[in-house]
């Protein structure tokens, strides 16, 4: 199960790196969203995966009978998803506004703050 998730994370990271290497900022943001999901899956798998074994503690005991997945990483993933959602909503709005204002999403043409000029940049 972990192997399957690990391969899936690998494929997602590869795809997102491909997207993030593009010159178009929108593709970069899509890559970022994809890689953040890959990160969430990594954390999810870090808590170990035990399908069909609910983390229930029988009455009277103070630990689960069988070895179960750790629930904390799942809580972390939830937090990370919520935070990520807010950040990407902002990032997408920013990119849209930038497109409206600058008329381009090509990162090579976005040189307003650092103009090519005599200062050698």
């Amino acid at each position, binding site marked *: *199960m*972990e*192997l*399957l998730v690990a391969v899936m994370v690998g494929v997602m990271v590869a795809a997102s790196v491909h997207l*993030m290497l593009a010159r178009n*900022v929108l593709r*970069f*943001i899509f890559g*970022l969203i994809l*890689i*953040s999901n*890959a*990160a*969430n899956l*990594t*954390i999810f*798998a*870090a*808590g*170990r*995966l*035990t*399908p069909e074994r609910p983390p229930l503690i029988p009455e009277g005991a103070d*630990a*689960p009978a069988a*070895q*179960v*997945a*750790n629930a*904390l*990483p799942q809580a*972390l993933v939830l*937090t*990370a998803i919520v*935070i990520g959602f*807010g*950040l990407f909503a*902002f*990032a997408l709005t*920013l*990119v849209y*506004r*930038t497109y409206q*204002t*600058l008329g381009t999403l090509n*990162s090579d043409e*976005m*040189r*307003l*703050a*650092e103009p090519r000029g*005599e*200062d*050698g*940049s």
Partner: protein
Amino acid sequence: MSWTLASPIIIPFATAVLAFLFRRGPEGRWLSVIGAAALLIASGLLMAEVWAEGVVAAQMGGWAAPFGITLVADLLSAVMVVITGITGLAVAVYALADVDARKEELGFHALFQVLLAGVCGAFLTGDIFNLYVWFEVMLIASFGLLILGGRREQLDGGVKYVTLNLVSTILFLSAVGLLYGMTGTLNMADLHGAVQEVDNPGLLVTLAVMFMVAFGVKAAVFPLFFWLPASYHTPAFSVSAIFAGLLTKVGVYALVRVFTLIFTTDVAYTHTILLWVAGLTMITGVLGAAAMNDFRRILSFHIVSQIGYMILGLALFTPLAIVGAVFYIVHHIIVKANLFLVAGVAKRIAGSTDLAAIGGLYRTAPLLGLLFLIPAFSLAGFPPLSGFWAKYVLVKASLDAQSYWIAAVALVVGLLTIYSMTKIWGAAFWTPHPEGRSPRLTDLPARDRAALLVPIASLAALTCVIGFYPEPFVVFAERSAAQLLDPAAYVGAVLGEAGGAAAEAGPGLAEPEGGQ
């Protein structure tokens, strides 16, 4: 729950809410000043407590460590919170004259206070996932501040700042997840013990490097600094100043914390990487600054260069070097924020930050000249200003550690810093104004003049105090370095007597199974 520990976070958040409600009137900006002053007082109280009693820790929500969220302050955290209070107050006063009504209506003061809350939270938390959350609080507020006003350059710089910081955040998050998977704890004090028991040291070093890269982006070290000079010169001057003073230093703080408390299992490997990074950061930053011709862009590149000195202290990892790093961080925040504030006044009276388009400030505004010279010479390391002692300790530490080449780099970079500072001095202060104007401080309305110059003068006075009476500050840095290098007090304060036992009783982790 300890109010002294929680108040540096609660005060700015409460102020943010009030400032947002009153954003349409003059009350908002005064609330921001009052909130920042209250933060400074609260941070002073915290500092007094930590100085008297050693490391202070509190469990939020009453959950015992290592399961609950811990707030903890050792001397380094406390001094960082105090510095946040000082720069926060200085910039809040400066913003009275610097930020226009339109930006206030859009919520400038609320965002500013949330930023302070995020920074204080990052300094005070004792939980590494919580550190991630505070980074996000800080980031989202900084995104807002950076593009507030929506000029074309701001959007351009903002895109680079936002995207590269998001990449580092995701790396940080994955590293936290994997660290939890290996150790079963997120509490930093508990991690100190837990990483000793990890049976795969190679994997641990991999994680250490992931943290190094993630925090390295935040701290703007070589080769991860490109977002900084692309964006720091675009927003309002108050925003530039608070960013320059605090944001990258949160990255440096996180590096110091993680690489003194958690990842000390393979110092020879990780800290050697840091040493190379430090040297290259110093050189690239100062060379970048030498190529620039704009007041704020020169200063932005100098942030990068100065970060190198702080990382150098961490990388050498000797008691004296850590003393130097702590001293350098404190000195640098004050000086760098102040230089950006001076740049703002120069722009207000001379009309630009482009060095080719301004001039004559020395003849017509000599007071501003003096207020520029103090932080500028301090940055370059002239005795007897604060930067001299900071650099002296670091160079001494590198010579003691027999890292002669890094000592040489530190000295040469200091020399090149003087070059860029004299470039600003020559172009903005000595040469006559190209349009024949004679910029005067008296051109400003009296209220604006007071709001702009009082913070600058106070920070400059502080620089002089550290420079002329360095001894108490060095003694402080020594105690702080001793705490960092021997985390027993930190671990003891967080976990308490029963801490180890509580960790043992933690829920059993299922072992990973092979592919099914």
